[in-house]
């Protein structure tokens, strides 16, 4: 049997977002192995039950000292196991020095994505193009599709996740993402949650998050009227991976910033109502598949860089504080939507998951559609004879090197 190794060393959300690639490889007849940080082992076994999981230490949290007595022996053992498996293809997904180091162990001809050849780090040409496309972040493609397109014969986008539909179990509220700037403070979130709750039959609310967010859950509940608080369960810090999956399964809706739990909901076919602000932009990392809605901050500086400080006093947060937003969520009428927020709904096309503008402001929408076709032609998903040519986009995104040395 053919074997493929997928090296995905980043976080919760990224592991879920690797799904289209994994499914594609499985459809191509590969037994898929996944190399991940050990903290995600439980989740990986749930999401990818048919895959072999190789947990190593790639993250720093929970590891004391300099790593010689922890990172080195654990990873050496895993690397020995990996070296004994005859992989036909290795998909090395993350632009990280650790990923490059790990790729050194394999025949570079078999490595897709990020590789290190005789000490020189290199990117697959598709990833090079992907890095250039990411300079237009509002028009960028979904990360799921970016990774999946490393493989030929991607499975259709609509076969990755179920079409989202309400499960009747109430609302899930994700308390915070890894980046606090991307999340709504509890006092901003509370009226929005209540507004959404008014539209859902099952009034139960489940607060989701890690132990670190348990207190934020309490604070959020303190902003609810007693009747709402009574029907709210604070699950933050109470669930392991299995518990989280059980908690999310069957919900009517998950209200969330751009988080791993959001991607888990999409994986389970639970509709997502995403609040995207700061560095989050829905076309890049929005929930995959059909049936999700994003309230996207569309002010001029969005999306910003995660690592850069904000010099504008988090002005992207202001529209979420506007009472009109709560009113919009209760009515879904575009006329109630405040300035600074746009509504996007997810759907699937030839390339992957796209976000269709429904209300607000989307000046780059036309270009985004054209860019998707340009990429579709580049990947051979649609016919350039019918949809092309794209001279301006080609001039910007194709480099001399591509033409000369491809």
């Amino acid at each position, binding site marked *: 049997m053919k074997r493929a190794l997928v090296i995905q060393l980043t976080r919760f959300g990224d592991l879920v977002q690797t799904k289209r690639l994994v499914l594609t490889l499985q459809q191509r007849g590969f037994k898929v192995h996944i190399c991940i940080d050990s903290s995600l082992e439980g989740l990986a076994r749930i999401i990818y039950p048919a895959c072999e999981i190789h947990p190593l230490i790639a993250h*720093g949290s929970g590891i004391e000292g300099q790593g*010689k007595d922890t*990172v*080195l022996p654990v990873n050496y053992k895993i690397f020995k196991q990996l070296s004994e498996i005859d992989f036909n293809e290795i998909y090395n997904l993350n632009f990280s020095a*650790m990923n490059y180091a790990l790729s050194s*162990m394999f025949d570079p001809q078999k490595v897709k994505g990020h590789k290190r050849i005789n*000490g020189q780090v290199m990117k697959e040409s598709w990833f090079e193009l992907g890095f250039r496309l990411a300079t237009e972040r509002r028009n960028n493609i979904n990360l799921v599709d970016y990774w999946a397109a490393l493989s030929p014969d991607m499975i259709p986008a609509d076969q990755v996740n179920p079409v989202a539909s309400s499960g009747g179990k109430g609302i899930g509220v994700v308390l915070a993402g890894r980046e606090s700037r991307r999340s709504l403070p509890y006092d901003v979130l509370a009226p929005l949650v209540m507004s959404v709750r008014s539209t859902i039959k099952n009034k139960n609310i489940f607060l989701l998050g890690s132990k670190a967010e348990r207190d934020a859950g309490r604070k959020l509940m303190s902003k609810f009227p007693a009747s709402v608080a009574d029907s709210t369960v604070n699950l933050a810090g109470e669930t392991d991976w299995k518990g989280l999956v059980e908690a999310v399964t069957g919900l009517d809706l998950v209200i969330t910033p751009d988080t791993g739990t959001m991607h888990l909901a999409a994986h389970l076919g639970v509709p997502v109502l995403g609040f995207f602000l700061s560095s989050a932009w829905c076309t890049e990392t929005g929930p995959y598949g059909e049936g999700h809605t994003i309230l996207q901050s569309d002010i001029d500086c969005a999306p910003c860089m995660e690592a850069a400080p904000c010099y504008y006093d988090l002005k992207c947060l202001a529209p979420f504080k506007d009472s009109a937003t709560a009113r919009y969520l209760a009515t879904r009428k575009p006329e109630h939507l405040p300035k600074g927020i746009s509504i996007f709904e997810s759907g699937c096309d030839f390339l992957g998951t796209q976000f269709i503008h429904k209300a607000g402001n989307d000046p780059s929408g036309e270009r985004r559609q054209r860019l998707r076709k340009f990429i579709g032609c580049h990947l051979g998903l649609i016919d350039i004879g019918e949809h092309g040519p794209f001279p301006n986009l080609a001039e910007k995104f194709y480099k001399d090197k591509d033409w000369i040395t491809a």
Partner: protein
Amino acid sequence: MDKNKVLRILVVLPLYGGSLPVGRFCISALEKMGHLVETFEAPDFYSAYNAIDDLKVTSDRHQYLRNSYLNILSQAVLAKVETFEPDMVLAMAQAPLTHQALKRLRKDNVKTAMWFVEDFRLFTYWQSFAPFYDVFAVIQKEPFFGELKQIGVNNALYLPLAAHPDFHKPGELSPVDIRKYGGDVSFMGAGYPNRRLAFRKLIHHGLKIWGTEWDGDHVLEPYVQLGGKRVSSEECVKIFNSTKINLNLHSSINADELVSGGDFINPRTFELAACGAFQLVDKRTLMPEAFEDGELAHFESLEDLDEKIGYFLAHPEERDQYVERARARVLKDHTYELRMQTLIDFTIERFNDWPSKRNINALFDNNFPEELKNDIVELIEKLGLPSNVTFNDLVSAVRSQQGQLSPLDTAVLFLDEWKRIYNR
């Protein structure tokens, strides 16, 4: 500084030329001494540089393209410095380092050394470049030292050439090689005017001439081997080892004087001695401090040389005595390892802050897992590193390997990246 400390040295080779083999011997010696060496393989870039010459474009474009290409090479060296973080950049004569790159290295406090293994009278570009190196090692003394001082070079070091005994050593040749490379009297080197004039009068000894730049000499042409092609370092050793009398006549552009009586000692002097090959060599002013009387057989003039060839062909036992003494002296005092140690000691003496302290991370600290020690020790041995190697130096040695890495190599590299990312 601990003299046994492992240094990280980036050797920048020239695109081509006589200092290229010297650079390779330096690399080999430094590695043998246990230092971590990375090489900038400039010769790999030479064919592209030559291709610019075939463009048939205007002179200004041609100049521009050549300069631009050399700038790229310089940038490539800087990128390597950034990654490897060497204690020293050791450049050989004609290394592709521009003024701009050298200024950058100085600003970044990366010590640079040039081993200028050329004749300063013939190759005069040193005037422009020497002040930009922190250490400028040369194969001549006065008046070169004085001139360097005048242009602000205070760290000039006399560092004569040498031999590399792992390479320049006595060896048995196959009958085929003896037939090809062997002979009574040979000369290996370029066709300088003084040599051309001299050798015309020595052809009756059955002279074999090896090396380049002999074309156009009808008298000598029948005696030039391999059509005057460049002879590799490996072939040189074969020639030396299978020749009864190796002529070693230092070059001079002045055809009037056969024996120029110049100062520097050429590399062949040391290499022949280390090979245990007999040589007849002209006297140089810097020779007495390198060799005692009786260690080398000299000649004073063309007549003297002609006569001594005959004499030594007839007295092999006397040849053997010279050979033995010369080889012992070279092994004792004139190896590339000793030269590199001299260069390092000189740099330590001149720069109090060199080598700058790195964040030393002892490899086998208390936390090191016992079950991994044996595997790591084997890896250290495989990489030729000293047993007290630091973690950072082990990582550098692993990084410099080519091809697919083993699981342990990968685990070490991975740990290093993990430490960097999480500041451990």
